[in-house]
């Protein structure tokens, strides 16, 4: 009877490391370009190294495509276009289904490669990136032979050769977002993955071969911004799709001025996560955490501004800080890791600089005690309180695990503050009141408004921005439109 009153301290329980095996990925020492269905050496003769941001260990050498290489890739895509665009749509659909199934079959391997090369936690690449990438191919496989029904009486036709440039935050998923609709609509593609994360795209080249996709339908050119610029400037492209920073997006738009190349841009964001006083607070905290710390905050639609109703800001921030101390930062391949490595040295420097500016402008910084590994690029989950709308951390996209907390008093003020940004990609609304959700969704100038959730994606739901977050939509029926011309 006495034992229970002794108030023994609870068990000091540490989770033992639970690493996912690396052995499932067989990386080659060198990867050439994927042009015309073959892996080819770059004409440029140049190579660069891709490394793991978690350990700084070199993973493989990758070709740096020069203008001639880009020219060859566009040529291969052009050659393949005639037969691919004339293929019976139901046959195109079969290829996409096949790719989707191979992605599912090889999902563990691709998830490990993604985490190795990009630094994101394995639970995220395993549970989010890979399932969504496969879902995009499945979804668009279904559209391939139904385009006439998607756009009745408008005679949809493919555009030709689509040039696609994707970012490093969701390498394989962004590849899927770009490739699946382009191929479903009958286009051929030259895709340039980001410089720091080329591996999953190069493994995807193997998937294309395994699916026996006709040579030249998908071409992959790796390299840095120079490669990207060569692709944008190439006379042979019929379409350009870019996901990345607003700065580069503007350069691309300037470059394409006066040319007959339709453009879609998916750029930066500074989304507001708006929490009203009647919201389910513990679940709102989960949504805030998911909104800004998911993928180390390397998410264009990240909820990087928390707008909390003043009457609940104290309990809300209290719960949030408490929750942050349970986040596990470390080895991306450990199945229990919540926050992985920052993608590159350059990105880490940018985050560090902006966080320093927040401190010097007068915001109050909170970071939970957490041990960061010595090697690699790491940043602890960070919350700024006492943030004024005019601070840089409230205005600029940080693209890291850094949240700025601001308050509002009325729904109208929440809308005003949320919309007071150059961006307009996404927003979150937390309230138990259905009518308020609908009213807010009408008022907010954002491409996606999530209600009582955040960072939810589905291939059937169009995604894209207002203002400097870009134009054009990806996903859903709207996403197809960017890869078609209409004769009717």
């Amino acid at each position: 009877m006495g034992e229970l009153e002794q108030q023994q301290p609870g068990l000091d329980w540490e989770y033992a490391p639970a690493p996912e095996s690396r052995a499932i990925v067989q990386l080659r020492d060198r990867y050439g370009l994927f042009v015309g269905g073959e892996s080819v050496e770059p004409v440029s003769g140049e190579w660069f190294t891709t490394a793991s941001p978690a350990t700084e260990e070199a993973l493989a050498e990758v070709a740096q495509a020069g203008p001639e290489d880009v020219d060859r890739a566009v040529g291969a895509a052009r050659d393949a276009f005639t037969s691919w665009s004339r293929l019976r749509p139901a046959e195109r659909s079969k290829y996409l289904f096949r790719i989707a199934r191979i992605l599912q079959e090889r999902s563990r391997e691709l998830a490990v490669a993604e985490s190795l090369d990009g630094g994101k936690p394995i639970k995220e690449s395993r549970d989010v990136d890979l399932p969504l990438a496969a879902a995009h191919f499945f979804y668009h496989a279904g559209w391939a032979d139904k385009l006439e029904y998607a756009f009745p009486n408008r005679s949809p036709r493919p555009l030709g050769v689509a040039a696609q440039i994707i970012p490093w935050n969701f390498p394989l998923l962004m590849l899927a977002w770009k490739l699946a609709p382009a191929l479903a609509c009958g286009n051929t593609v030259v895709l340039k993955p980001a410089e720091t994360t080329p591996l999953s795209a190069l493994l995807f080249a193997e998937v294309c071969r395994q699916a026996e996709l006709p040579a030249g339908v998908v071409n992959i050119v790796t390299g840095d911004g120079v490669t990207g610029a060569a692709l944008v400037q190439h006379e042979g492209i019929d379409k350009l799709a870019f996901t990345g920073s607003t700065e580069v997006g503007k350069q691309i738009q300037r470059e394409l001025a006066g040319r007959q190349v339709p453009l879609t841009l998916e750029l930066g964001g500074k989304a507001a996560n708006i929490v009203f006083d009647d919201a389910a607070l513990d679940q709102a905290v989960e949504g805030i955490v998911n909104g800004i710390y998911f993928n180390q905050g390397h998410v264009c639609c990240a909820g990087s501004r928390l707008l909390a109703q003043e009457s609940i800001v104290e309990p809300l921030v209290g719960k949030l800080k408490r929750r942050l101390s349970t986040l596990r930062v470390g080895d991306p391949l450990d199945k229990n890791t919540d926050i992985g490595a920052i993608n590159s040295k350059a990105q880490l420097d940018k985050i560090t600089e902006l966080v320093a500016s927040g401190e010097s402008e007068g915001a109050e910084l909170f970071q939970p005690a957490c041990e960061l590994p010595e090697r690699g690029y790491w940043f602890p989950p960070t919350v700024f309180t006492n943030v004024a709308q005019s601070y840089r951390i409230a205005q600029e996209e940080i693209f890291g695990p850094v949240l700025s907390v601001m308050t509002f008093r009325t729904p109208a003020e929440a809308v005003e503050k949320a919309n007071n940004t150059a961006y307009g990609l996404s927003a979150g609304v937390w309230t138990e009141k259905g009518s308020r959700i609908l009213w807010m969704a009408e008022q907010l100038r954002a491409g996606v408004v999530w209600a009582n959730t955040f960072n939810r994606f589905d291939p059937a739901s169009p995604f894209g921005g207002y203002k400097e977050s870009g134009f054009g939509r990806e996903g859903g029926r709207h996403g197809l439109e960017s890869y078609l011309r209409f004769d009717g």
Partner: protein
Amino acid sequence: MTQTPTVVREFEPFTPRLGRVGAVDAVALEARAAELAKRSIKKASKLAALELVVRMIDLTTLEGADTPGKVAALCAKAMRPDPVDLSVPHVAAVCVYPNLIEPARERLGSSPVRIAAVATGFPSGQYPVALRVADARAAAELGADEIDMVIDRGAFLSGRYAEVYDQIVRVREAVGDAHLKVILETGELGTYDNVRRASFLAMAAGADFIKTSTGKINPAATLPVTLCMLEAIRDVHLETGRAVGMKPAGGIRQSKQAIQHLCMLNETLGREWLTPERFRFGASSLLNDVLMQIRTQKTGAYESPDHFTVD
């Protein structure tokens, strides 16, 4: 019936608090519970967790067919769960009907294993209040260390919250020093909002533990329901400093489920709750599965269920 219910000191009267209980979003709660269930617990951390699970078990038999002989066997198992491996600790308590308190005491003697008795018209609670209170008082007088009472779901679901509250206060007074666990029977409450409201109500009325289920209704202890109650416990602790315990009961049969509950507990309430003083599993068949897993962790091989006693 003339006595005014006393309110636990740290709390203001319950009714004005109702508006501040707060809401629960079902979709997000279930997503969070599913996410926590994916923690991968290996090696030393798994063994430590399994031994803690044993120490947290309220080994339960609640059948019309229970006899002194059956309860004696249960008590023997509770004191020494694995006769082959004496390093396995004893369980926290045995949980029985009031008529079996005496045979249990006889068998347990001075063992640290405690006796929990269900009372207050278990499992339905659909009896006159006076009888329910008398039931609890009798169980305490028969020597139960802990009383597992049920709330009046009929009153709760018809919105008579104050009545539910007053009843718990009266039971609290009737059982004296005995540890009071309040069973919400979450499977009958219908929504997580109700679970949260009932949790606050029970804690405000003086519960030492809140408990999910009687084990007679499905669903019983699911991960999201436990998470919802843990969050209510955390909020009360942050606001008042009072630490209330949690007991999921019913439906937890496998070690894996128990470890998932512990991960949720660890990341919601933290180390201070990783103790049988503040967390229990109401279970019967769970124990043998945990014993089997402990053996596996120690020897590296699975043994047949026939190597573990069926009591």
